[in-house]
């Protein structure tokens, strides 16, 4: 217990916090990049194949992932 708390605790918490922050940042970036790519690909597709298209999407972090591409033909 002495070894764990006096030696590993402070450093361990910093490592845990650093990894958590890294994961959150990576997750946010992943969401943005992947959704952005879907958006671009579908946009090209829409321009090629439809006469009238409208996009509605939410831009919040969470909702960006679940954004819906509503296409009115």
């Amino acid at each position, binding site marked *: *217990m*002495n*070894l*764990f*708390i*006096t*030696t*590993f*605790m*402070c*450093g*361990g*918490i*910093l*490592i*845990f*916090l*650093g*990894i*958590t*922050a*890294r994961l*959150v*940042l*990576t997750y*946010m*970036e992943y969401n*943005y*990049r992947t959704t952005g790519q879907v958006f671009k690909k579908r946009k090209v597709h829409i321009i090629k194949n439809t006469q009238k298209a409208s996009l509605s999407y*939410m*831009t*919040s*972090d*969470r*909702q*960006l992932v679940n954004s819906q591409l509503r296409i009115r033909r």
Partner: protein
Amino acid sequence: MYAIGVIIFLSIITIIGILVTRQVKTAEDYYVSGRSASTLLVSGSLIASLLSAVAFTGEAGFAYDGYPMPQIMFAALMCTGYVFGSLFFGRYLRRSKAFTLPEFFGKRFDSKKVRRAAGVTVIIGISAYMVAVNQASGVLLSNILDVNYVLALVIMWVVYTSFTFLSGAKGVLITDTLMFFFFFFATAISIPLIISASGGWPDVFVNTPNDILSWHGITGEAAFMGTPVEVMMWALVNGIAWGFVTAISPWQTSRYLMAKDDHVVIRSGLIAPIVILSIYFFLDTAMVAVRLVNPDIVPSEEVFIWAAMNMMPLVIGIIVLSGIMAAAVSSLSTFLQLVGNSIARDIIIRDEKEYSQEESLKTARVAMLCVSVVILIITIFPPPAVIFISYAAGTMFAASWGPVAIASIASKKVNKDAAFWSILLGLFGVIAGEAINLFTNITLPMYLPPMIIGIILSSVSLIIGTWIGNATEKEMLFREKILQTDASFFDTKKMLVTKRFSTLMIVSGILFIGVAFVYYYLPAFLL
């Protein structure tokens, strides 16, 4: 000599703070430093606001009394609030474009009632906390300058009021950062001297009894904490609760309102724990070493001051004493700015369109001056009720704001009535718990401090209020608005730099383990 050194230091800080006044052109400059603060300024102010004189007096004394590791355990848990607070609350708070935290709650819940309730909490809690810090710094300064207590209080008042009144948030950010560097430097140079004067490393830890150096410190019937389990409960409960304080309290998160962008918020939240933990670890372990030279310092709160005057060369001693005063002044200026802003914006709520820049600045300055005069008078003639509230002030916000702050971002169903009652009942829970502790024979168990009672009441009322009522469309739309992440946030270069801060934190953690093992554990338990 100590008196002259400290007076020169306080004069320099005051002059720098007043010079910043020239940069204050708009109300936004005055309230939130023009929302243009860099990572250096935000993190400097976060650390300076948290580490008031208490860290260098009361908490250093606690380590000296035989509890260095419990104190460090508490600090480590408290620091988690910075990372979670900046990632899941601070950056949304910044996007709200509010000038104060109560204003954020008011906008989020589309309610002047919620804004005023939060504003009243700030005024009561922060003012009481200010009185406590004012008293501590007054006693300290009167000892250093050898003047009477009231004159010392007036000197302190002139120092922090002058630049906070004139330059507002801009002055507070700059002076906070300067003072942070000053007390960080003072701590860094004083610790090797204390260790050396106590017998040198590794002898100080070899010669100190193992029970003091162990993870639980001194336990037993005559000790402050009876068993190791009690120590663990104390550190866990208080550490987690103070984690809420660093995540959502006004004197910490209001710094995020001044940040240039979301990256500054996150980077500051990553830097602050590394610096704060380093200060706590080296300062508190060094305080144990002072016991070898003088085990009879009474009151123990003066241990670091005694070490500065008796274990260091004159110049370093002056720097250390000035560093302790810097920690007190930085906290007092932040507190004054928060209370003044809350009175000017959250109690006197006026339509922005009818409010000119000049009027807004004038109102804030008048409020700031009135508050500081009232607090000075209360500090000189403290009514018992104020002292009683100051016991609870630090953690009051964890209870009354914690659940509402989390729900304001995480839940779209939470509504104004739930938020209002949650703030009020959280506040009531803390005050009632403190009253039970102080005025009755009932002693609350270690795992149920007043703050936990407040958090339970606040959470229950929030859940019931959300279940009964409905959020309006305006409340939900505001939440949607602040949840929107600007595309510029995902700029590859900026993201890379922010990720490097997280890497720095991981590397610091690994280094910390190595240093703690060689510096502390090896001599304490293996040699």
